């Protein structure tokens, strides 16, 4: 069966440290993978997209890696801040499917001051 798993439901880290979130997938062949941020009571907001032929993508303090052999994406937030506290969702589009995205259950990140 198809699965998208994010490493932990919740992650607490100290301000200034690097947060690393994991997304693993099974029985998908994604053309690309996306990461979204979701704050309570709001819809997800797009952060980064990485294609299957890209190993790494960066945007300011964010870095995403994509390993199609391991079927895994890592999402890093460096120099984390309390404002980074939110739920982070990975999503992928299966090459065999339509444009709809398949989402993981998310990791709730809390950055402690």
């Amino acid at each position, binding site marked *: 069966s198809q699965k*998208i798993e994010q490493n932990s*439901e919740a992650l607490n880290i100290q301000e200034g440290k690097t947060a690393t979130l994991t997304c693993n997938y099974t029985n998908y062949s994604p*053309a*690309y993978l*996306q990461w*979204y941020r979701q704050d309570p*009571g*709001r*819809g*997800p*907001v*797009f952060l980064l*997209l990485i*294609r299957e032929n890209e190993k790494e993508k960066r945007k300011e303090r964010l870095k995403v890696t994509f390993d199609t052999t391991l079927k895994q994406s890592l999402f890093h937030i460096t120099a984390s801040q309390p404002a980074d506290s939110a739920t982070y*969702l990975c*999503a992928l*589009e299966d090459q065999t*499917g*339509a*444009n*709809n*995205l*398949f*989402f*993981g*259950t*998310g990791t709730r990140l809390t950055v402690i001051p």
Partner: protein
Amino acid sequence: GAGVSQSPSNKVTEKGKDVELRCDPISGHTALYWYRQSLGQGLEFLIYFQGNSAPDKSGLPSDRFSAERTGGSVSTLTIQRTQQEDSAVYLCASSLGLAGVSDTQYFGPGTRLTVL
């Protein structure tokens, strides 16, 4: 508009009643998506529109769920004879709908549906 809007923001209904949820996508976005997010769960894909047609209805959980889109813009998701397990946040997203290109989705704030 500036973003995707959804109405109502909250809906409380009694079991067995029908509900209609509305989504106004970003102007010019041809693709529109409906998702459901239950407490502590990930987003569950329901249906996808390209223009007014729905090439993928595979996610609709039962025949009580239907959706339409008119004029390539506004979409309504209708749930008939609501059940308590339908309680969730219903999220709408839109995108440019460009074929063969990775397409960022822009989400609305969602409609929180509570079935008593």
